[in-house]
């Protein structure tokens, strides 16, 4: 087990829980979306950490592929969420 | 796979299918609906005739259908089920005629007759049920199909009545269901077997069996209107008269009573029930119900409510008969299933006639109605006298056997007073009606009299059914000892139950 595993794995977990806490507790919709993204990042970090095999070994490509997919999915969701928020505020302005 | 295998199913379907078709009929297609109704009823009668003959000659009619592993839908014709099936089939035929007359020109007839047929199918289904699961299934179906009929008029009272009806019956249904599942998990699949099978279970299960019995009887007691579970019955009287007549006087309450018979005789076995010490409790409740219902009926001015409380009281005779250990009491209970049905349906028909023709809903409005509607009132009188237990109307036979059974079983010290008190109370709430109807001078104007073109006192379709059922009631009493009477059939059932 590598130091990098320790460091990044740990921070991945922490970032994820930070994100989770913020998703649960934050009032602002936008910030919750950001928090979700942060949380996702934490998960991705864990994945990338798993893939890491040391400075000289080729990393496992599968988690990388997974993370790539994950990023795209996350950005899609974020885009939809942001549009929803916008539409909602418009509706409320109209009311 | 032959005709015998499917016959019980056909009996159920013969009313179910016309019912389902009727839902989709246009309100105006009166004739087609009538044709469907009548042909269904007659076909059913025919099929039931075949079954009756066969069961008498020890043929086996059984439809099986697997619902899930270990859960089978079984329709099985035995003597007991045939008794109930005949009752509901014959009365359905009569009631259909009555209902056609009663609901003439009223809205939503397609819906009404649709549900009506479904109700009858459910009743027949639970009569033919060959195991507890099937029974529960049709039992609940009956609840459901009755609800729209009670709520039919859509007035706030009707809705309220329907709500109360449901609250009671569904609660009962849930209890019954729970008990059934519990029993199933202990004893496996529970077919109705004459004499019951549970006595073979290990004694460790006996406490559980007691609780299950309690659950099931409570569940069935709701429909059988055992006090204190009877509250729905008077409320459900807001339904149109044919509904009160067939369903509340016969199908629904009988379903409960029939269920109690099944549970006691064919699931637990009456001796085993007695061993568990459960019969006495049931008997006491039945006795309380008999008295309570009669006392309540005394103070009802609303005719249908009075009849409803009378039903509460009368149906418990069946339960009482069950609790009387020994074949004679059993005969009394079982035969009362039929007798009470025929008599009470007569009463409800006539009550409906009064309401429909003259707008009479209250006992206090009935002064002299015998002069205006003699035939109807005659039928009413016959029903009422039968309820009191005066021969030759059928009621006396039941009472006779109940009392006799209690003597045999050594229970006379409390059963007889109950019977006597109840008979007197019956007289006390029926005879004043007869007095009013026959001997008092009519009021100058009826509450809301319909101008009828008919030759008779009311429409023929309303008049004949009660007369027919009244004749049936008398016949059942007069020819009680003849080979095809309900009494003889009840004796046959009892002989088979007790293995005599």
């Amino acid at each position, binding site marked *: 087990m590598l130091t990098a595993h320790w460091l990044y794995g740990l921070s991945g977990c922490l970032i994820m829980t930070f994100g989770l806490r913020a998703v649960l507790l934050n009032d602002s919709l936008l910030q919750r979306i950001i928090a979700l993204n942060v949380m996702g990042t934490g998960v991705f970090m864990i994945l990338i950490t798993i893939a890491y095999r040391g400075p000289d070994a080729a990393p496992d490509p599968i988690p990388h592929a997974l993370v790539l997919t994950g990023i795209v999915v996350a950005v899609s969701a974020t885009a939809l969420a942001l549009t929803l928020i916008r539409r*909602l505020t418009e509706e409320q302005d109209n009311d | 796979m032959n005709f015998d295998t499917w016959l019980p199913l056909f009996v159920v379907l013969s009313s179910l299918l016309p019912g389902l078709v009727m839902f989709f009929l246009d309100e105006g297609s009166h004739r087609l609906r009538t044709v469907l109704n009548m042909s269904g009823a007659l076909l059913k009668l025919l099929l039931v005739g075949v079954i009756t003959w066969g069961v008498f000659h020890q043929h086996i009619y059984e439809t099986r259908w697997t*619902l899930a592993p270990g859960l089978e839908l079984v329709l099985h014709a035995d003597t007991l089920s045939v008794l109930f099936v005949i009752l509901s089939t014959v009365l359905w035929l009569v009631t259909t005629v009555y209902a056609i007359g009663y609901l003439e020109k009223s809205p939503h007839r397609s819906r009404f007759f649709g549900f009506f047929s479904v109700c009858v199918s459910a009743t027949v289904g639970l009569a033919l049920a060959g195991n507890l699961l099937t029974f529960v299934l049709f039992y609940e179906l009956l609840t459901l199909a009755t609800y729209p009929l009670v709520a039919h*008029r859509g007035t706030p009272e009707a809705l309220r009545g329907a709500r109360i009806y449901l609250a009671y019956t569904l609660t009962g249904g849930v209890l019954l269901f*729970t008990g059934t599942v519990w029993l199933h998990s202990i004893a496996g699949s529970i077919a109705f077997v004459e004499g019951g099978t549970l006595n073979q279970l290990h004694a460790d299960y006996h406490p559980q069996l007691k609780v299950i019995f309690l659950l099931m009887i409570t569940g069935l007691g709701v429909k059988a209107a055992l006090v204190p579970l009877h509250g729905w019955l008077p409320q459900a009287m807001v339904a149109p008269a044919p509904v009160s007549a067939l369903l509340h006087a016969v199908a629904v309450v009988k379903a409960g009573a029939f269920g109690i018979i099944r549970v006691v005789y064919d699931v637990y076995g009456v001796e085993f029930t007695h061993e568990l010490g459960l019969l006495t409790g049931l008997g006491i409740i039945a006795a309380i119900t008999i008295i309570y219902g009669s006392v309540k009926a005394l103070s009802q001015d609303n005719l249908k409510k009075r009849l409803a409380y009378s039903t509460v009281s009368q149906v418990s005779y069946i339960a009482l008969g069950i609790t009387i250990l020994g074949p004679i009491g059993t005969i009394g209970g079982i035969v009362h299933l039929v007798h009470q049905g025929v008599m009470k349906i007569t009463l409800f028909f006539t009550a409906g006639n009064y309401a429909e023709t003259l707008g009479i809903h209250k006992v206090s409005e009935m002064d002299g109605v015998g002069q205006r509607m003699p035939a109807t009132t005659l039928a009413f009188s016959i029903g009422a006298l039968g309820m009191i237990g005066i021969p030759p109307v059928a009621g006396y036979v039941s009472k006779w056997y109940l009392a006799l059974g209690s003597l045999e079983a050594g229970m006379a010290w409390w059963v007889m007073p109950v019977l006597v008190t109840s008979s007197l109370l019956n007289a006390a709430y029926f005879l004043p009606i007869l007095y009013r109807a026959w001997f008092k001078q009519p009021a100058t104007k009826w509450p809301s009299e319909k101008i009828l073109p008919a030759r008779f006192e009311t429409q023929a379709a309303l008049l004949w059914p009660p007369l027919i059922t009244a004749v049936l009631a008398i016949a059942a009493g007069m020819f009680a000892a003849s080979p095809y009477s309900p009494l003889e059939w009840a004796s046959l059932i009892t002989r088979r139950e007790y293995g005599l």
Partner: protein
Amino acid sequence: MIDTLIWLVALPLASALATQLLPRYATAIVISTAIATSINAAALLYAVATHGVMLYQIGGWTAGLGIALRADGLSALLLMMAAIVLLASSIYASAYFNDNPLRRRFWPLWLLLWCSLNALLLSGDLFNLYVTLELLGLSAVALASLGGKTAALQAALRYLLVGLLGSMLFLAGVTLIYAGYGTLDLATLSRVVAAGPIAWSALALMTVGLLLKTALFPLHFWLPPAHGSAPAPVSAVLSALVVKATFYLVMRLWLDIFSEVVTPQAASIPGVLGAAAVLWGSWQALRAERLKLLAAYSTVAQLGYLFLFFPLLQALPAGAARDAAMGGLVILALTHGLAKSGLFLAIGIIQQRSGHDTIRDLDGTAQRLPATTFAIALSGIALIGLPPSGAFLGKWHLLAAAFSAGQWLWVVVIMIGTLLAAAYTFRVLGHAFGQQPYPRHPVTIAAEEWPALILSAFATIGLGLAGAPVWQLLKVSL
């Protein structure tokens, strides 16, 4: 034959693209796709019944490296249910959105939802499941937001956030699994998984994520507004299928893949939550003022029943009793799916005709819309669990399992829940039967009324009387 699996995913996807490209022919495309997919699902069901588990390795790569599609009895049944519900809802929607400009937006999303559902039910790969979950979530949110009103948007947004959070937690669990076992393939995983912190925490993460999406009490808060404000066909599918899909995953994980890992204590957690859901959901449904909210809360309650099975299935030893209970669980889920979709479709009709769905003001509905009221009644029967509905059999087995496992508490919960369900169902019907002047010849659109009726009837009569094959099919498992 085996291509059925991929076609179940590919066809809706292809049609989604086609409807986007050719909006003019959208309805025809959707209906034909719906029919074809239903036939597909039926074919799969038949194939599973006759040939056992179906496996399809996409790209020809062995499972693990590639992604495999798998169908066993459970997934085939759920696929079939999805097909039925979606077929009916599609027909319904074609009338519902008759002239509405929204239909152009609706159809592609609708088909994408279908595609994602099928993909999810067939997927044999954990990460692929994550992707399908997201696809499902996003398409569901997009559909739910079509309601357009502030409430719908609000609900959709909440739904989206919850969905995202749920899938993220699921992904975290998947990550742990990959870290611990180096595989994403479900079949491989079920072989190698062992009790320990990795399995526990991965299962916990995935479960919490899925439960969020499944709306198990107390994570149900998002469901009533989302299901209550979406357009009717969408609500139908959301309540009937979308939550079911995630529930299917929970089931897969707990009862199948991680069954060795789960302890009785752990299994009692979903049980307790399920019990709470039953009581709370039913109670809220009883107090709801709008039909749709009622239906939505009823979903919360009904999902609770499904979770009641978990402690029981855990407690029962493998054998006939457990198989029976398992069948009960599935048939309960299937019945609820069909019934609830029927209910929502029916509510949609009422809403369209009368312009509202306030329960208090439903008087005369039975007169005006008899078939619709009948559909509501039928689905109500299934929701209560009265015979002859499939839910009756489900509850039977639930109770039976509770009795055999000696876990009496659930019995009480089930009884109370049933009564509450009856209360809320008949509260609606009571109002519907109320008196009101009514037109003699009510306006009926067959395409709208029939799907609701058929779905409810299927749930109430079809599954109840012809539900035995479910148990047969469930014997075919991974």
